């Protein structure tokens, strides 16, 4: 772990991670009220990957997500109000309530879409990247997916084509060692995921996904490579999912992750590490931390307030947009 990196703006990245953490926590805290009537897959513990990767992206670059994309959406600059409203099924949601937590989009911010079929967006990101290349734009496309997704054949089809056409798509594997409750070892043999990506001809970077420095650094390199014509890049980051696969709670009681203890999580907390660096190297004091906490808190609360003030979608519109004009 590098603890100082002059090329990254740690306060900004910390802010971005904190926003995600606090938004997810707010969702978790309110979920029992049963007003968010859709499944939520929270990304607490995995914030550094989304934030570290998006740090080197510009708005015109596009990001595709998956079922666990609150963090991806927010890190790319997606409108928080519209996300919370979407989870609550309000008309002001980013999908007008059609999508819920598992379907998010913010074109203005370059968040190009998340859907919950595992692997569903991977080839879309390759298509997007190809479109940039064909139009000779300097944009890149990024897709976030999990270790489980790596098992889907479509990912290999997508890597092959991206490598063939030297497409500026960045594959980001968030390897949390779990697919729902099934550990990696029950699903994949002992060998490295990124080794396969390398064999496909992609540029490969692996690192600690709980370390914002490492993520930002490696992603920065990968994105620069892709942007300058280096073809598709593959980032594999080890990380850890704190909560259950779906829902708003820890699930230590299920006993399927025997290592899991509060201490285990703390040790891997991407925020904790960034905080240490902010104190040590950026001279942040308690006051700085509480100021940013306050700012984020207000922002998150405002998003919920915005949501509560928003109307439900009109049921008569439920069939709209089945077809485009």
């Amino acid at each position, binding site marked *: 772990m590098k603890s100082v990196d002059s090329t990254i703006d740690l306060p900004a990245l910390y802010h971005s991670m904190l926003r995600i953490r606090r938004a997810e926590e707010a969702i978790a805290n309110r979920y029992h009220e049963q007003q968010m009537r859709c499944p939520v897959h929270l990304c607490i513990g995995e914030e550094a990957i989304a934030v570290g990767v998006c740090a080197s992206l510009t708005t015109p670059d596009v990001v595709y997500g998956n079922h666990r994309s609150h963090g991806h959406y927010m890190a790319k600059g997606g409108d928080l109000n519209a996300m919370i409203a979407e989870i609550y099924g309000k008309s002001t949601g980013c999908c007008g309530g*059609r999508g819920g937590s*598992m379907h998010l989009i913010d074109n203005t911010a370059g968040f190009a879409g998340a*859907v919950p079929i595992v692997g569903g967006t991977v080839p879309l990101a390759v298509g997007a990247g190809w479109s940039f290349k064909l139009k000779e734009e300097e944009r890149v496309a990024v897709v976030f997916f999990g270790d489980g997704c790596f*098992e889907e054949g479509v990912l290999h089809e997508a890597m092959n084509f991206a490598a063939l056409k030297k497409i500026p798509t960045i594959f980001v594997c968030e390897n949390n060692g779990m697919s729902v409750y099934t550990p990696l070892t029950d699903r994949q043999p002992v060998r490295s995921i990124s080794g396969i990506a390398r064999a496909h001809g992609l540029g490969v970077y692996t690192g600690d996904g709980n370390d914002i420095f490492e993520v930002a650094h490696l992603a920065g390199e990968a994105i620069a490579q892709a942007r300058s014509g280096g073809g598709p890049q593959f980032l594999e980051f080890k990380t850890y999912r704190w909560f259950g696969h779906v829902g708003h709670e820890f699930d230590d009681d299920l006993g399927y992750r025997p290592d899991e203890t509060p201490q285990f999580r703390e040790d891997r907390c991407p925020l904790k590490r960034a905080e240490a660096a902010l104190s040590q190297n950026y001279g942040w004091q308690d006051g700085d931390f509480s100021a940013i906490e306050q700012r984020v808190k207000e922002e998150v609360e405002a998003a919920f307030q915005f949501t509560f003030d928003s109307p*439900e979608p009109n049921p008569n519109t439920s069939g709209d947009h*089945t077809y485009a004009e």
Partner: protein
Amino acid sequence: MQSSTMDKAKTPTIIRELNFGEALQEAQLQTMESDKSVMVIGEGVADPKSIFRTTEGLVERFGPDRVTEMPLAENGMTGVCIGLSINGFRPILVHQRIDFALLSLDQIINNAAKLHYVFDGKVTVPLVVRMLIGRGWGQGPQHAQSLQSIFAHIPGLKVVMPTTPYDAKGMLNSAIKDNNPVMFIEHRWLYNLKGDVPKEPYLVPLDKANVVRKGRDITIATYSHMTIEAIAAAKELAKHGVEVEIIDMRCVRPIDIDPVLASVKNSGLLLVLDTGWASCGVSSEIMARTAESAFQHLKKPPKRITLPDFPAPTAKSLTDDYYPDAETIVQGVVSLVDDEQKLPSKKICEAVRRTSLRDIPNPAYVGPF
């Protein structure tokens, strides 16, 4: 709602109340005990949630070689299961949502449905694919489809959709014993419904509809969760003197149209209910067959109640009206019977109107039916 087609057990049969999910679990457990070639494979079959507890206890009992978690690789794993089934095993492949099975239609349609045929009977594919359909709680368009008609189109497949715990166990037993690929489609909203289920193993055939309620005034052809809605509607309608005959199709391939034709012969009126979309769907097939074969008995054009022709939205406010229910069925019946004297539609609708939140299973439906 007991099947008339139940195999009579030779020893006295203990009958308990089980819910649909428990009935499925028992079918798998008992079949795995008596037949070592039966395996259960799927994402989550051996995890702490055990596919909504329908595979509960199986891995503890039979070990991970027979109850196997699998990688996220629906097409490949379907092919693997076909390979197993050709070589002496009887795999049960489980998809938590039928939407995921779209990734495997190549193996299901090109291989599973055709290998016995094209190899002139020299291989058999005794494969069960359990696929869950469902709805509610914001599943949204990629997690709440009801895609049975895709499978029902394909010769070489059998496609069944039981409604009751009794049929769940008996048909899953039959599906596992069958030497053909059987698509076993379960509506998650049935899982908590209770009904009498014999303890001993028994078989319910995979090609027989079941008259679950007798009635002379109108015929309802339905299946899966819509059967429960139909029963609720029929009970209320009966109070107003309209006797609805309800036929639980149970199988959508092959479709057992005869009980529908026989019923229409008496009633002259047909209302078809579907959990899925209309176009080229199961409802279309039932209506087409009835038009072909009981045309002269129909007093009025047949009607159908299906999902509206668009994807499932997520927000509760948008889904509330998306799914037809007992109230919609009452309206359908009233429009066909068309006797406002006898049938004060508003009043009956109110009586069956759901008062609890509509994006979770109706707590008023518990069974037995």
